[in-house]
């Protein structure tokens, strides 16, 4: 091979280039550090928060704490009415939010035509996702508590939180449904199924895991919400439990509890945090720790579900 080097030596000096690159790569390195540092700030804050709650609160956690009502004496105060209240409110929330949210999501993905009505609905959902939670409380106060006459009750609270997390459930449903390939729908229709049959037998089952993830995230958010519930008028000192849903006498099921006054975990914590006595602050830390564990567990579950989902379903 008659290999002859080109006659013109190039205008760029190799060493100049190398110096320039080294200088620029230093910036690469520095930014890598800065990015890690920024992440560390988040990690540090979270750890400080968690550890602080744990150190102050865990010693206070015993069976009595979970089974006692609040009391003027800090050492005897407990979160019984709070966690029962939270559980009951969550039941109502899920009862309304899940069917409404999934139905809305299914409608928007499978049925809705591309017209201005659909646009209005979608704009509303996006908008509602950004409304501050306390405004939902005001809505509930004016509408549920007074206008509809539900009073300052578990029903009002559950409805309010259901509306609050509705956008979360709707978006999760829509995204889960969007993941289903068109080929599956076509296969169902080609066999003569109606739209509802396709939705019932294919769309909803295949998207259920994604929907579940969204519901869990929504519920995790609802458990921690304080502002709207305070606005409705949840009392901060409740030393009784709502009437039990299950009764000995017929008709064996009671709905009295729906209209009962109540309190929830975040409000109990808020109440104790507002007291100057150190002992109550310990109670607050304990309640807070339980709250954080609950929301962590629920969010963690949702994240894990999402991870499993990604690995399992390969269309």
């Amino acid at each position, binding site marked *: 091979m008659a290999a002859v080097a080109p006659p013109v030596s190039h205008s760029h000096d190799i060493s100049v280039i190398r110096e320039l690159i080294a200088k620029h790569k230093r910036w690469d390195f520095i930014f890598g550090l800065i990015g890690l540092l920024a992440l560390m700030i988040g990690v540090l804050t979270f750890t400080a928060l968690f550890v602080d709650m744990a150190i102050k609160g865990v010693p206070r956690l015993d069976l009595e704490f979970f089974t006692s009502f609040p009391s003027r004496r800090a050492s005897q105060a407990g979160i019984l009415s709070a966690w029962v209240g939270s559980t009951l409110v969550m039941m109502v929330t899920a009862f309304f939010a899940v069917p409404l949210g999934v139905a809305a999501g299914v409608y928007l993905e499978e049925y809705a035509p591309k017209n201005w009505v659909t646009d209005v609905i979608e704009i509303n959902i996006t908008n509602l996702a*950004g409304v501050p939670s306390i405004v939902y409380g005001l809505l509930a106060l004016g509408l549920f508590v007074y206008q509809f006459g539900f009073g300052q009750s578990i029903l009002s609270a559950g409805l309010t939180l259901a509306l609050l997390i509705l956008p979360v459930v709707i978006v999760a449903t829509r995204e889960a449904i969007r993941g289903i390939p068109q080929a599956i729908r076509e296969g169902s229709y080609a066999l003569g199924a109606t739209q509802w049959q396709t939705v019932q037998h294919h769309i909803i089952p295949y998207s259920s895991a994604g929907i579940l993830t969204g519901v869990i995230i929504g519920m995790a958010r609802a458990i*921690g919400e304080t502002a709207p519930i305070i606005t409705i008028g949840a009392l901060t000192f409740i030393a009784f439990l709502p009437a039990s849903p299950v009764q000995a006498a017929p008709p064996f099921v009671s709905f009295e509890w729906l209209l009962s006054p109540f309190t929830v975990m975040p409000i109990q914590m808020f109440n104790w945090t507002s007291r100057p006595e150190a002992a109550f602050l310990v109670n607050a830390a304990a309640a807070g720790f339980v709250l954080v564990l609950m929301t962590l567990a629920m969010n963690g579950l949702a994240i894990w579900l999402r991870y499993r989902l990604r690995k399992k379903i390969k269309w």
Partner: protein
Amino acid sequence: MSAVAPSGSASTTVMAQGLTSARLAQRRSRIWREKLIEFVLFAAASVSVFVTIGIVYVLVSESVQFFRHVPIWDFLTDTQWTPLFDDAHFGIMVLLSGTITSSLVALSVAIPLGTIIAIYLSEFAPFKLREVAKPFLELLGGVPTIVYGYFALLFVTPILQAIYPELPGFNLLSAGLVMGIMIIPYVSSISEDAMRAVPMSLREGSYAMGATRYQTAVKVVVPAAISGIASAYILGISRAVGETMILAVAAGMQPSLTFNPLEPAATITAYIVQVALGDLPHGSVGYQTIFAAGLTLMLLTLVFNILGHALRKRFREVY
């Protein structure tokens, strides 16, 4: 050529007709059922519209009553907020100052850190780190705000007081700082989504020119994702303005016209909580103030949400 019917066709035709009409009737009821189901689903979807209408109705109707007692001009320009005094003043600026100050503190933390984290995760971090960091940030954003409030009051404030002993127990600074950390995940996840949407071909074009990772990220990817990043910022602002519990717990609930974060003050949201905790009779002016305040808040966040949405639509359209 017309078909010649086979023998015995008369009964077949009648039977066929019977089958056909049965099938038709079935089809009719099936169509009816499908339409009913569609309507039910549509009703569920339109609940969101009714919620918005409900919010507007409640806020506006109570505010209208409020503005019968209090002139709008006073509402907007008075420098005192003392609705429960005999000599009552209703200057929303007082509450707004608390909201603005705390939000500024929060955003001065959330925007830089959120953006840096987004760029780092999108352009620099190894895959495994991303897989861990993203869920972690979700958890950070999922902590109940009352817990953050407790943290601000009883952990952050004492630390700040060690540095600056004159800091009052209730102050906008620690509430703002903690709020900022809470908002980081909002800013970083939307910014990161915007950056990941930038096609690889643009990055390859930049690398092919001899650029480093940092140069490509800052000169090509961020400008390409800018409308998505802007919408992330706006979402952060909206979130900061609407936050309640962190401020109610750590900044105190004393309305005060101040832009100094080292002082306690009430935000619009904290004020509403304060009233709700008390015992204001339904229909009194005091009761109506929370709706007027809520309306102001709603309008503020509405403006930000609309802006943010418009920007996010733009970034989706470009690709």
